[in-house]
């Protein structure tokens, strides 16, 4: 498993109309090549020990924003190898600035593999104000 899963510079509060609605973080694909988003079967995110509902997650790719259900049909956007992908987490209330714990699991299904790749990583981070 690659070591650098989360982007240490990628944490930010998400706002809408000036109001905090969640946060975002950067994550690399845990695979040795890029892949169409549809190949990423699932993302699971934990914040401070609590699992975030799947429908609260968004993946940003080339400026487009997809829910995980929408991602199932996204075959022309690629999560590039070794590049940070942005994951948005919509939460109400939004997490407060300060220290937090983050967990993330990627489930990837490369077409040729007889099994799926499931990788989990945890980190601690400070959400900027």
């Amino acid at each position, binding site marked *: 498993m690659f070591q650098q899963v989360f982007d240490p510079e990628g944490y930010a509060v998400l706002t809408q109309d000036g109001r905090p609605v969640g946060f975002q973080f950067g994550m*690399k694909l845990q695979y040795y*090549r890029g*892949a169409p988003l549809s190949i990423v079967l699932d993302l699971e995110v934990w914040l401070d020990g609590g699992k975030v509902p799947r429908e609260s997650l968004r993946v940003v790719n080339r400026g487009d924003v997809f829910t995980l259900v929408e991602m199932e049909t996204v075959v022309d956007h690629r999560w590039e190898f*070794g590049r940070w992908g942005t994951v948005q987490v919509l939460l109400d209330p939004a997490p407060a600035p300060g220290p937090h714990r983050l967990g993330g699991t990627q489930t990837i299904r490369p*077409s040729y593999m007889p099994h799926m790749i499931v990788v989990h990583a945890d980190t601690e981070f400070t959400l900027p104000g």
Partner: protein
Amino acid sequence: MAAGNRIKRSVSLYSFQEEYYDGRLDLEGCLSAVASTGATGVEVLAEAMFPDFPNPSPEFEAQWFGWLAKNGLTPTCYDAFLESKIYRNRVLTLREQVAMTERDICLAARFGFRTLRTLCSTPLEVIEGSLACAEKESVTICLEVHAPFALDSAWSDLYLEMIHRTGTKRFGFMPDFGMFYRNMPPIARAQALRKGAHPDLLRFVDEAFEQRVAKGFVPIRYSLDLAAANQAYRRENGMVDLRDKLVSLGANEADLGYLFMSYNFTWNDPSVVTRNIAHIFHTHAKFHEVDEQYVDTTTPLPEVLAAYVAGGYDGYLSSEYEGNSSLNDALPVDSVEQVRRQQEAMRRILEA
């Protein structure tokens, strides 16, 4: 070994995935690193390192050839991935899979590659349907013979029959040295121990592997259902019994991970290469570790390379370093040094 053979050496950029992932090397840096190891050829995974794949720009194309010239490198093999499961509700049709393969053949030709690696899971019909394009683009499709797949097997015979039936010169095989592992990688064993495996149970797995090496492996069969074929292969080579035995002895996740990994490698008598040399156009020199004395810790390189020389092979042996994943949980990875050692080991054998 008699010098004067025409075997050339290449490096697959798969080898530098750790450095590329971490941002220590970009594509230009990878090419420079390849040249520094003494290799003259480079193999790529365009899906990993070509910007804007599958539509790289003309500007990148110019940059690519500039970097090759600067480093004195020849493009050798383009590694294709037939992503046939991009949709959740169906597998791509035969026509769609052929179109995807033709896309890759054209990309390979555009970027100067004369061979294209196709995965061992590629349906025979997809290859046959792509031959006209391969002919037009002067690219030879090479089916990767990746353990547990094997030459001189019912699986490879099906593809050989297609070669004979069509008379094609644009299709053949590329062995992967994972089929020449005589023992488990020591660095994998060390990693399992770091993760809490039991030394006595790892020894049990090692001995079972050694027994399969001595006795011979039951080859995997051709199937479009790779998961089922792989399960059958593992079962027929004793994995289920071994797993049950280990569990009864108190195996943990690290023990079982080591057991499952041991089914990713096989041993074949290297003479299988000599017998099939007329159909071999490229080779993945897969390895986990070459030590400071330039000895590969799993593959007897002198014996394997002798089989290539005996057959009169004039293609590339392309380093494919895979040891990073057995180190990167706790230890630094220096893929460039590992590749340099393997290249030097191969050079010494081939030029002796």
